[in-house]
């Protein structure tokens, strides 16, 4: 199995633990990722709000590069995944978007046809590789892990391509296959605070607080995420939140790929676990036994 790979800025920066765990895990499952040559910003964040035309062109340039490879494109970051999909939907639906994009790309000798499928790693893991193959690869079942699966807002909304919009279950199934326990977490698609954490901090942090508190209240000992921004928001401010809400908030926040790596028996530092601000107990089963 081979895919083109669009890392985006996060996976090379604040979210490098995601890439560090994604690549060995997929490779362990026989999936080859071929990083897109000369990729650029996906077009997410401020671009869409300031100039949607520029946003679409940025996204479409990456898609045009991917089209030359004639294989599905994996976009692990939720922001990239959404924007690349959005660009394809809009170009297909609104001819003026398609025309503008194509004409701009022509200057760069590129063509955009909209033929590449943009995929999320979760989709590939569960639907292409399958839980049975994943189960076979588990050498270190995640005994004692009680995981709150947190999907965030972008990978199933508005385009519910591989899971239910309101009650996604792909990660839930995945963690059970890894031998972990999954806690009921109805906030699995609720906002983490997004960029509000940087602009209107008290509002953003309140949203993070609710997610963290509910994960703790439901007995989770780790919260798994799919998104670099969610990971950052939830992980980085737990000290501030604890003092603001007079409540000790402590919840390790990891990428689902890191949990997979652990279950596959990969060393913690090879899957970026040392980068967690709130450290995760690697053997919660032992802690339980005590």
């Amino acid at each position: 199995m081979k895919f083109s790979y669009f890392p985006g800025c996060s996976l090379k920066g604040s979210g490098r633990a995601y890439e560090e765990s994604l690549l060995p895990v997929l490779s362990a499952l026989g999936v080859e990722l071929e990083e897109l040559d000369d990729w650029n910003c996906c077009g997410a964040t401020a671009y869409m709000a300031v100039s949607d035309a520029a946003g679409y062109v940025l996204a479409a340039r990456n898609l045009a590069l991917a089209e030359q490879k004639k294989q599905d494109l994996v976009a692990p970051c939720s922001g990239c995944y959404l924007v690349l999909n959005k660009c394809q939907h809009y170009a297909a639906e609104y001819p003026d978007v398609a025309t503008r994009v194509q004409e701009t790309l022509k200057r760069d000798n590129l063509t955009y046809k909209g033929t590449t499928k943009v995929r999320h790693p979760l989709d590939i893991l569960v639907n292409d590789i399958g839980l049975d193959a994943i189960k076979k690869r588990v050498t270190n079942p995640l005994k004692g892990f009680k995981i709150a699966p947190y999907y965030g807002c972008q990978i199933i909304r508005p385009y519910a391509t591989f899971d239910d919009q309101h009650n996604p279950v792909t990660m839930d199934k995945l963690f059970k296959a890894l031998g972990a326990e999954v806690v009921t977490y109805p906030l699995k698609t609720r906002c983490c605070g997004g960029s509000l954490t940087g602009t209107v901090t008290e509002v953003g942090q309140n949203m993070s607080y609710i997610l963290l508190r509910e994960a703790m209240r439901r007995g989770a000992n780790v919260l798994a995420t799919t998104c670099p921004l969610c990971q950052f928001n939830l992980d980085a401010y737990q000290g501030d939140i604890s003092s603001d809400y007079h409540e000790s908030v402590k919840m390790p926040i990891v990428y689902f790929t890191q949990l997979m790596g652990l279950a596959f028996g990969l060393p913690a530092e090879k899957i970026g676990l040392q980068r967690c601000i709130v450290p995760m107990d690697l053997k919660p089963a032992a802690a339980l036994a005590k």
Partner: protein
Amino acid sequence: MNEPTKTQPRIGVYICHCGTNIAGVVDCKAVAETAAQYPNVVVSRDYKYMCSDPGQALIQQDIKEHKLDRIVVSSCSPLLHEHTFRGACEKGGLNPYCFQMVNIREHDSWVHEKGAAATDKAKDLTRAAVSRVAHHKPLETKTTPIHPDVMIVGGGIAGIQAALTLANAGQHVYLVEREPTIGGYMAKFDKTFPTLDCAACILTPKMSAVGAHPNITLWTYSEVAKVDGFVGNYKVVVKRKPRYIIEDLCVGCNECVTACVFKEGKFEDEFNMGLSKRKPVYMPFPQATPPIVLIDPETCINVKTGKCKKTCVEACGDRQAIDFTQKAEMKEVQVGTIILATGFQPFDAKRIPQYGYGIYPNVYTSLEIERLVNASGPTEGHVVLRDGKTKPKSVGIVHCVGSRDNKTHRWCSRVCCMYSMKLAHLIKHHTDAEVFNFYIDIRAPGKGYEEFYEKLQEEGVHFIRGRVAEVTDWQMSKEEEGKLVIRVEDTLAGFVRRIPVDMVVLAVGLEPHADSQDVRRQFNISCSTEGWFLERHPKLAPVNTFTDGIFIAGACQGPKDIPDTVAQAGAAAAEALSLIKAGSIELEPNTAFVVAEECSGCKTCIPMCPYTAISRDDVKKVAVINEALCKGCGTCVAACPSGAIKQNLFDDDEITSEIEAILAK
């Protein structure tokens, strides 16, 4: 009678305005003027309403005055008024089949913009009909006798009402019900809106009347397996599933139930929506009709393994009503007409996971609450939470679950607003809880319905306008602890609210049965895209279908409440009765026939016929069509390589003249 001549037909053409329905788009006067120039046209007129009495009289008068022998009317769909105009021709002394109708309303003025194109189309279609009608031959109307017995499929309130109406009129009725008892969903209800009369009090007398009626053969726990034949003469095979009880011998004493080796109920009680448990041998509910028990093969140890003490058989004793050797039985009956009253199924609330049904125990469906508030229900009418003892202090009723929703069903289920208010009233009455209704719009269009809504508001039931976003258990404040939180945008107050409650009731909508497509294929009728059975005309033939002799009643045709269902059931019974009393029905004479001199006896046509109406006369070496079996589809006509098969009303010369003239400019 004016007999059409072969040499020079005399045709009358009539262009209907249909008020402004046609004339608002098509220039009717111009069409009539142009039509006057078509060959053989003697009279051409336009008139405001051709279907009215004066319109019809106009045709009759012209037939006499101008010695017309053929008529063309350009108006609405032939499916609507062909019969009317054929009647007018007949009254005018003309053979009714020397008539051709042109559809310039449904196929023209209603679908095109006003202008030359629409008028040109009306002219083309009319010219084609004029050309075609010249080839029409006088035909004899054929009739077929109607078998007086009726089959009714479905024993809910619709089927019960139709069965009693027909049986009381002296007709023999076969009532077939899939479940072990008749009564349908109505039997599960406590009270009915808006009068709050007890459902059982008004339904159970009707159920026992069905059970006791000498004119009704009641087959419960049975399904229609096969339907053959046509109007007046249907042959239906019914599969009677084994209930392992000999119906005639069981007296309904329930002693076998008491004696069963299962000391306590262990399996979900379907009648109580799983809120209580039953044994493998059980009576669905005390007023079940027929009032006899059945043995569930899925859970009975003896049926499954043959290794049981059979304490039930012992308890039954001399009555010997239990028979473990019972097999499914096929019954074949002849009936003239069939009424389908197969009802609906409730929407599966699990399809909307954010409402928490199946996740949070204290989220209920409305049907579960119907059982909870019912004095003969699993809690004897005590409204308590799943723990079996706590009375809810606050209850939220979520409207439109699976209705008015692009993601599930777009239609309004029509009954949910009213039954939600009924349940709100009953819950408040039983528990004195605060009750919140979350609605999009309140739909209370019925006699006494709006007044009921007002009454509820006076009782202090809360109404919050907004579609609920989610039902959840995460908390933001102390008062939310241990509660279910309903998150909703209150569109009247203009902000997002969180309302903590102890119990959530999901007002699930009505949807077609999962197997409605199979059922309608079996009876050769149509479904709407949603899966509801399609009526012949939404206004003028609401209980008829496109298949003669098959009628529909109740929620199988679309969501409706009890009063509407009963009215429709009565209408279906009356339609069936009118066929039966007439004794026979006129058939379209559009059957096919073989011109023996031109037939080479090649047998191409024989496998074409799905009704085995064609055979080969081995002496004369030609094909022969049995007119009584022919339904007039014309498939054999199109297949005949030598053109030896002809079809009345749809013969080659008629159709080809239509093609030619429709394209003539």
